[in-house]
């Protein structure tokens, strides 16, 4: 273990699989899909989504919820969970040494359509002054800083559907550079709205399995036909391992590797040879000082689109020289929470290490014969592992790999 290693000391999850880390983990391990018909999407072509179970946002966050958008509600709720899990008290910490990095892919559009209507009507005095502060990508990071008294470096990072993973990597860099002592990092997204839903449908990215919403998110299955839009947030508390030990914290995992690379090829499609995934993986392994034989499990990006899963499968095969470890895509349960996905999946990878268990890929009935991976399906698989990798890919060719090691 490297002396300057970074520890994951707290996890917060607000996902379609549950409000809370244990609730999410249990649902993910049960392999129960969360996709369902979503009447709030109206008459868009694909009215299916994965929604976070109802919870009392005001009870969780206080009376200021009116000034926050849905993705900020989810992010702040997960952030509070993560801080509690880490055993930290924001009332006593040195806020100047606390950083916040939140990845956001597309943010919410709830306010935009009414605003455009008012603009067309020339009713400028009716435009909400909150449209800008509620919808800018940094809103979640800013509100977390206000709520928790974090006054160190803070920012939003965006690499489309790799945003949550890139945020965690960025936070790790901040800690290693000594720019803060505690970092709250992860991702949040609330895209279950007719506008992004209709636009992703126009791209042909969504599953159109309207007759079987529960079966719509089926990563690596031969009958997959796209992803299911999902909302959620995953936040983690990161600290230098020595600091965590000094305060008596029990790290859930060591965050030992971060690699990122860009295809530079296409604005939406991954590079057909998966070169960016390979580069990111190689960089993350080098960062962790590990080889592929050390990696016991990969939490794949696995969106369920025909293209992603085939290219990712081939890339993982090349990285692992034809012998990849057990792989899962938790998107079979959670759907695809876009900019939050990488953070939620990194948290689930940390829990896999903790529980020595690989969750199943829901809805995988027949593995695509072109994908030569050992994809865990049907039931959670007990599995001995000392290190795991979480892979994320985003439109624009962003690839991020995170490596976590057992404590």
């Amino acid at each position, binding site marked *: 273990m490297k002396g300057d290693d970074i520890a994951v000391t707290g996890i917060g999850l607000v996902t379609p699989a549950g409000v809370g880390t244990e609730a999410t983990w249990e649902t993910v391990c049960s392999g129960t899909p969360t996709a369902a018909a979503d009447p709030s999407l109206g008459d868009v072509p694909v009215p299916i989504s994965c929604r976070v179970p109802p919870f009392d946002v005001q009870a969780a966050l206080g*009376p*200021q919820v*009116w000034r926050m958008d849905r993705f900020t509600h989810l992010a702040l709720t997960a952030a509070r969970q993560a801080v509690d899990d880490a055993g930290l008290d924001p009332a006593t910490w040195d806020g100047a040494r606390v950083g916040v990095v939140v990845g956001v892919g597309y943010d919410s559009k709830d306010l935009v359509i009414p605003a455009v209507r008012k603009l*067309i009507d020339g*009713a400028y005095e*009716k435009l909400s002054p909150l449209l800008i502060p509620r919808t800018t990508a940094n809103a979640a990071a800013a509100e977390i800083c206000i709520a928790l008294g974090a006054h160190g470096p803070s920012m939003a990072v965006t690499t489309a559907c790799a945003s949550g993973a890139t945020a965690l990597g960025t936070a790790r860099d901040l800690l290693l550079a000594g720019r803060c002592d505690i970092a709250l990092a992860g991702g949040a997204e609330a895209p279950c709205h007719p506008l992004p839903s209709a636009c992703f449908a126009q791209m042909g990215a969504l599953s159109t399995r309207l007759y079987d919403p529960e079966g719509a998110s089926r990563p690596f299955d031969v009958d997959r036909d796209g992803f299911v839009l999902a909302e959620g947030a995953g936040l983690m508390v990161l600290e230098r391992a020595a600091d965590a030990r000094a305060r008596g914290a029990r790290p859930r995992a060591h965050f030992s590797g971060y690699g990122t690379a860009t295809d530079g090829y296409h604005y939406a499609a991954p590079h057909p040879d998966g070169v960016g995934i390979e580069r990111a993986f190689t960089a993350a392994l080098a960062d962790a000082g590990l080889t592929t034989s050390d990696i016991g499990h990969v939490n794949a990006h696995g969106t369920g689109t025909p293209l992603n899963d085939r290219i990712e499968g081939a890339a993982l095969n090349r990285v692992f020289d034809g012998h990849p470890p057990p792989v899962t895509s938790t998107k079979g349960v959670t759907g695809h929470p876009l900019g939050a996905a990488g953070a939620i999946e990194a948290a689930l990878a940390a829990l896999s290490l903790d529980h020595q268990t690989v969750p199943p890929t829901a809805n995988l009935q027949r593995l695509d014969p072109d994908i030569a991976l050992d994809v865990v399906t049907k039931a959670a698989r007990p599995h001995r592992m000392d290190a795991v990798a979480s892979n994320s890919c985003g439109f624009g060719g962003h690839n991020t790999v995170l490596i976590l090691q057992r404590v």
Partner: protein
Amino acid sequence: MTPVYEAVKSVLTSHFNIPDDIIRPEATLEDIGLDSLAVVELLCVLQDELGLRVPTGDEALKSLQVTLAQAAAAVEQAQPAPVPETLA
């Protein structure tokens, strides 16, 4: 109180989650925790609900020391919204 005051009170509880017991006619905007952006937001929601158009730069609503009764009176003096002219 006036129907407009009742509308203000309703928006403060439903939109801003402000506890009912601190919403009193003599309470100032600051007393109930609003800042300058929140006051503009309050006007936006009220305009939608009441079909009025209130200039957001209205001098009567520039100070956070305005009471809720005074704010309601200022909104009440605003004119009903004209029929929208669209660009279509």
